């Protein structure tokens, strides 16, 4: 046993040993496929951070998927109104596990400057949130910092096949039943 460890440590053989969850989480953290749920002015900052100057492709998160079924990272970017809330909930439900949610900007974190009848006071009242990036809008550097923190969180996740989000029917989420007029 000791000999085998010694072989591994020296790297003199063509294999190495680790844990499956570490490998899977390592792969996941460098291949986020984000779904940009862009509703407001923060979207311009999202475009900036996604563009070549700040280049989130360096972190493996460059490719937005415009179907939630192909995405695993929900970026909620911009003010969420009451009328938008059921749509956000539906998009969240359509993303398959494993999934992560980022609240991008002050509005998604807390309602931001809009303490009024029409604005959701933070998307954590609707869906679970993994990471809050405050700012009105956040600097691209703040978004990159958040992305790195999210990667650390993904790497440190316990297990690799444990559903991280609660089942959606356990969440007491408001759903506006009536369709639009």
């Amino acid at each position, binding site marked *: 046993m000791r000999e085998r460890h010694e072989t591994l440590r020296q790297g003199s053989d063509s294999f190495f040993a680790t844990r499956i969850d570490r490998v899977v989480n390592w792969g996941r953290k460098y291949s986020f496929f984000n779904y940009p749920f862009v509703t407001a002015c923060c979207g311009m900052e999202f475009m900036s951070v996604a563009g070549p100057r700040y280049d989130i492709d360096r972190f493996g998160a460059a490719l937005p998927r415009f179907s939630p079924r192909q995405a695993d990272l929900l970026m909620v970017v911009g003010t969420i109104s009451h009328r938008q809330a059921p749509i956000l909930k539906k998009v969240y439900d359509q993303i398959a596990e494993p999934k992560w949610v980022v609240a991008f900007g002050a509005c998604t974190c807390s309602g931001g400057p809009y303490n009024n009848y*029409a604005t*959701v006071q933070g998307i954590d009242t609707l869906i679970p949130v993994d990471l809050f990036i405050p700012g009105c809008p956040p600097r691209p550097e703040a978004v990159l910092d958040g992305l790195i923190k999210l990667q650390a969180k993904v790497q440190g996740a316990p297990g690799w096949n444990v559903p991280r989000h609660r089942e959606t029917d356990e969440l007491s989420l408001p759903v506006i039943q009536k369709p639009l*007029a």
Partner: protein
Amino acid sequence: MTERLLEQVTACLAERVLDRHTRLGDVTVVVEADRIAEVLTLLRDDPGLRFNLLVDLTAVDYLKRKPRFEVVYHLASLETAARGRQPSGIRHRLRVKVGVSEDPCELPSCVGVWPAADWMEREVWDLYGVRFLGHPDLRRILLYEQFEGHPLRKDYPKERRQPLMGPRN
């Protein structure tokens, strides 16, 4: 110009005008709430006025005044002088105001006069809670069915939360 339009409108509406004034080229008349549909029909059909466009229909909440609400109609005439109907020669405009009490907060609908009033009256109902009698489909238009209260009323607290959205977790 505005004086002439004001005279025409006054002649058309006669005793139905409660108050009137002109300011900065705008003509405003105040009329009674229960005669509003009749007044608007007269303004639309009068051969010298022909207000065939309802530009806007909105409301104001004065809270401490009685009557508390004021519904405001902005009318315009798209008839041109070339068609020989409009005496003033330009497309004239008129503002009609009508006071609405807090209880009952009701006003006859003018959807029958201009179909364009349909969604505008729904918006006023949605945000101010003025009920338009005779409206064919008076539902909320911007907010949703389960919303409680009418948020543009001055006594609607801005911190008030709705049952479906709830407080923060």
